[in-house]
């Protein structure tokens, strides 16, 4: 419509050019406002689906680990997900340490307590001074199943859903899972109390 106006008027009235341009401007401005307005109106409908304030409030837990013996593990719930707290045996750690980082499918530590680029050597799967503790989201990085403890070809975890094998440091070795299992942010409050989140 605007185009016809320009052509029609442009032929006989020179100042109609300006008129048409102003009209174009109004049209574009209206269109832009309508687009922004629509986007602003749609946003609440989309954002309502994100975690609400009550879900965000449950962001940290404290766990007493005094009863866990070497070679044992407990599982606690954090943000609706299981977290495995494992007191690793010397043999488990040795095995994990003997694996060169080059042999790993995912070379990154995936440890929220470290830099995102930290390599996935065994030390980086834990925090300094507490290397025997592996505190890890026990959630398969493929599609979210809970892997079985002390299972699979590497004696770590095995996810039965689609066959992912993790080693004793929770690092992916074979299978469709793309990443090592995640280490959540945590802190030792004292010898027996750890805060996750």
């Amino acid at each position, binding site marked *: 419509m605007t185009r016809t106006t320009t052509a029609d008027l442009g032929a006989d009235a020179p100042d109609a050019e300006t008129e048409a341009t102003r009209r174009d401007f109004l049209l574009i401005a209206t269109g832009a406002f309508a687009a922004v307005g629509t986007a602003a109106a749609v946003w609440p409908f*989309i954002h309502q*689906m*994100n*975690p*609400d304030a009550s*879900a965000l409030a449950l962001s940290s837990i404290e766990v007493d680990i005094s009863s866990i013996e070497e070679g044992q593990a407990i*599982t606690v*719930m954090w*943000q*609706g*997900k*299981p977290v495995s707290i494992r007191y690793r045996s010397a043999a488990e750690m040795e095995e994990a340490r003997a694996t060169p980082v080059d042999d790993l499918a995912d070379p990154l530590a995936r440890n929220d307590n470290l830099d995102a680029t930290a390599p996935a050597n065994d030390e980086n799967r834990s925090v300094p001074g507490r290397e025997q503790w592996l505190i890890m989201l026990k959630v398969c990085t*493929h*599609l*979210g*199943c*809970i892997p079985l403890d002390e299972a699979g070809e590497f004696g770590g975890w095995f*996810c*039965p*859903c*689609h*066959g992912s094998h993790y080693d004793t440091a929770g690092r992916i070795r074979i*299978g*469709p*899972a*793309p990443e090592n299992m995640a280490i959540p942010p945590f802190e030792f409050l004292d010898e027996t109390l750890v805060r996750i989140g």
Partner: protein
Amino acid sequence: MQHDYFPRYEPKTAVGRWFDDRLPLTRLMYDSFVAYPVPRNLNYFYTFGGILSIMLVVQIVTGVVLAMHYVPHEDFAFDSIEHIMRNVNYGWLLRYIHSNGASMFFLAVYIHIFRGLYFGSYKAPREILWILGVVIFLLMMATAFMGYVLPWGQMSFWGATVITNLFSAIPLVGESVVTWLWGGFAVGQPTLNRFYSLHYLLPFMIAGVVALHVWALHVTGQTNPTGIEVKSKQDVVPFTPHATIKDAFAMTLFLILFAWFVFYLPNYLGHADNYQKADPLVTPAHIVPEWYLLPFYAILRAVPSKLFGVVLMFGSIAVLFILPWLDTSRVRSANYRPLYRQFFWIFVVVCIGLGYLGAKPAEGGYVVAARILTIYYFAHFFLILPLLGLFENPRPRPASIADSVLGPADQPSGAPAAAGGVAAPETRG
């Protein structure tokens, strides 16, 4: 389709005329389902559209009454299902109709889709009709998936976890998309509640797309086993009584099968694990989706990469959208395509094989077999169909539908019409 073969709606009473002048609804129904011409040679594979419509109604009616008793809460959902099964009057019946109805719905839709593949129903001028069908199929899968989550058993919970996690494969925004879908950091109460809302909504969206699908159908008309377009009145019969009775008969047989499942094998198609309440700490040893999603699940698991597996799984359905342009042959019906006919049956076996593998654990020989069948699945669409159209020598087709049914000699109006009337998509070999 040309529509003057049979007399159209004529209001017979004054009230009918008064109404027709104001809202020609009766006219629309009469012209669409009574006087509407259908090819005289339709076989029973053409009755599944009607069966599907009935199944949609069955699901909506049983679903709405189940919703009167169901509680969409992580603490009560599982118990409310048992409440429906034990306490609600006829609750067991309504639930078994609804849960087995979903399976029957998919059985019918698969027959309907393979009918289309065999008789070339997706070819010009029916591309939009076909694409709307694929949209319905996608909506059905979404609806069934979310419905299966509602009983909040172990399979519900872990199926929901695995399927929503598929979206985490999206580069960069994957994790945020999954959190958004869940409304939390894992599948939980917000997830269940929204799935319930959407499970209620989607069937009505399906009903809307079905209306478009039938509209598109009534513009182009049905195909038929010869794949030749309707050319004259000899080729067609009026929808009522012919198609109506045939559809009703097929529907009756189908409902007998349905009733057999509901009354004798109500849990045969389900998983025992789903009678165990959802436990976020324990994944069942063997997660499998409902049978109707197994082939796609097999494709997902066949690929060793997460992103690529998800892409291929969605791709295996998306390819149906472009199928009308992948098949280069202008002969519609496989009855006249000796090679395609064989490849069609191989394809059917491959799909069933993928379904079988989807139910098996993802290890050893099963994975290898799933990989081979996945490659074949895509080769069928991207290699075999485009090439067949170029190299295949189709068999001669009858001059008209009437010819194919009655034999050329019986055709009253004789040769001239037949000679001139070769339908456009049929002209090239």
